C-alpha cells in the first residue's frame, strides 16, 4: 500500500480545484468527494469511496487510486495517485479521461471535442506544473529525480555511449 501524507494530499487537492474551477464554483458532488474522513489512516481511506481503484500496467502492474474531480468545462477528469518507483513511492497524476474517442473528420462535433481535449491537456499541464512547484511528486519530478541519480552514477561509472 502506498503511503501518502495527508499534508501532500491536501495541497494536491487545493491546487487541483483552484486550476479546474478558476471561478471557485466547485460543484457540490465534488465538494463531497474531497471532504474526507480525516480520522482514518489515508492508506485505509484509499481503498474506499469516494476513491476509485483500477489496475494498471504502467509503470508496473499496480493499483491506481483516483478521485473524479472534473473541471468546469468537463466533469470526467480524475486526480490520481499512481504507484511509481521514486523517492515517495507514488506520483500525483491528472487523467484527462478523454482517450476513449477519436472523432473522424466527418464528425459534426469533432472540432468541439478537439477543443475539449485541448483544454483538458492544458489543465493537466497547469495542475501538474503547480504540483511540482509545490514540491509534490509528479511524473516529471520523478523523471528528473531519476535523471539526477543517473548523472551521479555516470560521474562514478561512465555508461557506454550511443555514439558510433
Amino acid at each position, binding site marked *: 500500500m502506498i503511503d501518502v501524507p495527508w499534508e501532500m494530499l491536501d495541497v494536491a487537492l487545493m491546487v487541483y480545484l483552484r486550476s479546474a474551477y478558476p471561478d471557485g464554483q466547485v460543484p457540490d458532488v465534488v465538494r463531497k468527494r474531497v471532504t474526507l474522513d480525516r480520522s482514518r489512516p489515508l492508506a485505509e481511506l484509499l481503498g474506499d469511496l469516494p476513491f476509485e481503484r483500477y489496475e*494498471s*500496467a*504502467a*509503470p508496473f502492474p499496480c493499483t491506481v487510486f483516483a478521485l473524479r474531480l472534473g473541471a468546469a468545462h468537463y466533469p470526467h477528469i480524475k486526480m490520481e495517485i*499512481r504507484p*511509481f*518507483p521514486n523517492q515517495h513511492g507514488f*506520483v500525483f*497524476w491528472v487523467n484527462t479521461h478523454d*482517450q476513449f474517442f*477519436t472523432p473522424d473528420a466527418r464528425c459534426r462535433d469533432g472540432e468541439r471535442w*478537439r477543443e475539449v*481535449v*485541448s483544454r483538458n*491537456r492544458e489543465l*493537466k*499541464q497547469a495542475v*501538474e*506544473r503547480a504540483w511540482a512547484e509545490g514540491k509534490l511528486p509528479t*511524473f*516529471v519530478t*520523478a*523523471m*528528473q529525480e*531519476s*535523471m539526477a541519480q*543517473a*548523472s551521479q552514477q555516470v560521474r562514478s561509472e561512465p*555508461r557506454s*555511449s*550511443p*555514439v*558510433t
Partner: protein
Amino acid sequence: MAKAVLIIEDEPDANAILAQVVAQQGFDVFQTYSGRDGLAQARKQPPDLLLLDLMLPDVDGFEICETLRASRETNLIPIVMATALADTEHRVHGYRVGANCYVAKPYTREQILQAIDKALAWKQEIIHNHVEGEISFDVASEMQFLIEVNDILSSLFLLTPLDERSAARLRRALLEMGQNAIEWGNRSQVDKPVKITYRLQSDRVVLTIRDQGAGFTPDRIPHAARDEDPLGHIPVREVMGLREGGFGILITRGLVDEMKYNEAGNEVTIVQKFAARAMAAD
C-alpha cells in the same frame, strides 16, 4: 557521430523530459510538437530513432507510424510509442501499424532506455542478420505475429525491389491470413503456434502460413464471402452470431499474385511477384 532521436509529443513537459532523458545518453535530439511537423521532419531527415506519442492534435501517432512503415525511405526507422493509452487494444494496434516498442505513461527512465535499446537492436538485426533464401518461425500470439509481419516487410524492403504499393498489399494479406490462422485455425490457443515460412526468390516472395487446426475447404465456408456471391454469407453470419466480416480470403485473393490452400486446408501459400507488380504500378 551521435545518433539522432526525433521526438513527436505535443505535451511540452513530456516532450522536454523525453528530450532530457535521451540527451543525457548522448543522443542528438530533435523535438516536434505536432503530428504533421513530426512526420515532415521524419521524411525530410529520417532519424535513427523515433519516440512517438499517439494522441496528437492533428495526425495521430498510429497513422504516422503506419505511414513511415509503408515507405521504403523510412521503413527502417526504429519506432518507440510512448503514450498514455495503456490498454491492450491500443497496444495491439500499435504493433499492427509497425511499432517496435510500446511504453505506457507514466513510464520510467529505465523503461524508455530499454525500449530505445531494443528498437535500435531491431534495426541492427534486420540489417545484419537478414536471411536470404528460406526462413521459418512459429508465432503463438497475435502480438508476436504483428511484430513478425513488420519484420518481414522491413526485410523485404531491404532485400528486394518490392514497391511500396505491393508491400502495403502484402502486409494486408499477411494480416488477414495470419488472423485467420490464429483465430479460426488454432482457435486462439497460445499453445498451438502458427508456422510462417517465407522464401525469397529472384522475382517473388513466397509466404506460407500453417495453423494446427483440422483445416477447411476454403470455397465451402458458408460464413465467408465468395467470388460468385460476395455478400451471400452475411445472413449466415447473422444467424451464427458472428461479427461483420468474412471477407478475409476474398480480399487476400485480390491483393496478391497467387494464393492457394493445401489439401488439408490448414496451410495457405501467398505469392507476391516483384517485377510484375512494379511494372503494373508503372
